[in-house]
């Protein structure tokens, strides 16, 4: 294995709204698999209800709090600038 660069943009492969999750997550939240430029399919939080095929771009934001109540950051894919995504 070797490090590889990935793009910031991707396409939503599938999406759900999670209503029941592990402690620390703010339910409900949107999440799904995103196909990233370069071939990876990753699970990540989504910024809002997005349908498969939506064009998204990577942001970093708070996705949960840890056991001490501190905010923890992670990838959140939101509608890409200029993209017109149906929900």
């Amino acid at each position: 294995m070797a490090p590889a660069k990935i793009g910031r943009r991707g396409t939503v492969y599938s999406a759900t709204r999670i209503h029941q999750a592990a402690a620390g997550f703010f339910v409900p939240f949107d999440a799904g698999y995103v196909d990233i430029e370069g071939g990876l399919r990753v699970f990540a939080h989504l910024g809002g209800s997005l349908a498969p095929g939506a064009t998204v771009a990577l942001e970093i934001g708070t996705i949960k709090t840890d056991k001490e109540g501190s905010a923890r950051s992670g990838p959140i894919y939101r509608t890409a600038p200029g993209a017109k995504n149906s929900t």
Partner: protein
Amino acid sequence: MIGAGHVGLSNMIEGKAAILGVGMTPFGKHEDRTVEDLARAAVVAALADAGLGRDDVQAVFAAHLYQGEVLGQRVLRGLGFPEIPVLNLENACAGGSSAVRAGWLAIAAGQYDRVLVIGAEKMGRGLINFVNPDLEQAMGITAPAQYALAARRHMHEFGTPVEGFAEIAVKSRYHAGRNPNAWFRDPVTRDEVLASRPIAEPLTLLQCCRNGSGAAALVLASEKWTRAHGRGGPWVRTSALASWMSDGTQKDLTDFGATRRAAIEAYEATGIGPDAVDAVELHDAFTCGELLHYEGLQLCAKGEGARLALDGTTRLGGRVPVNVSGGLLAKSHPLGATGVAQFCELTWQLRGTATGRQVEDARVALAHSQGGVSLEAGATCVTLLTRD
């Protein structure tokens, strides 16, 4: 890397083992009983059903996920078993069926004439807490979310309606109403299923199996010993085990788990095709899973799963009834016990003794179970059984 990719057919073996006896506890909360107590009840029932005693058993295969060290020995100690070999086995939610497979294989390979298989689990409440959470779980994925994402992709690619998923929950309760071993036996309507609390959209509460505790056991015997003692089947004919291990490729969520590969191995090993299967117990941890497994087991073409649910094909009286026991959805899901309990139901079906829910003239049955940690790693087991 040697053996990279899907070599396939590596475990394609056919060999008969008779199911001489089965036993299970009903699944439920069982808050006042220990896992050992539950397992002992199943073992005693299976031995009585087989007409055998503890001294007749040559080896034991015991499946569980969260019950600690040497569960099998702890169970058998309290029943006064002799000090025979015991293998404790974990394969996530496919552990029970993997233990049946291990028992069958030991017999098919000629190692033993009579073995005992046990599956048992005492469960807590809520979402399953994985011992080794992976990256996706750290990011917030859950087991129902995994299936929900598969459901959404299937809807996107094939136009599958949510009613197709909901009908599976309706069918499960319809079957469970005829099975005294099931836990959730009241009928529900499609509207009630869809209106129940959302868990991971589009999956609602009534489309998710509940945690439950319980145990199941069965006694397997070699064909030679069985015939010599004037006994018969039903028979385990083959059992195929497949895995998935994330390798960075893009997984097709509409082909969930390794169901298709395990099924192909089982069909090819026996020459029994999906059209010949009369009754199926499959891993319906979530309604969406059942629908995808219709396709993976090739009960229909890819994309057609909803039709099987909606036109009654998989309901009792249909062409290939699925989860006539009520499945995980109506029985609950005591992880290690689940796969073994499927064999209890299919044994009763092939004997023709599933009173109130008998699949007419059932001759061929299929058991399927699947477990793992999200898309990162998992196991699927498909076993074919015949009456004769």
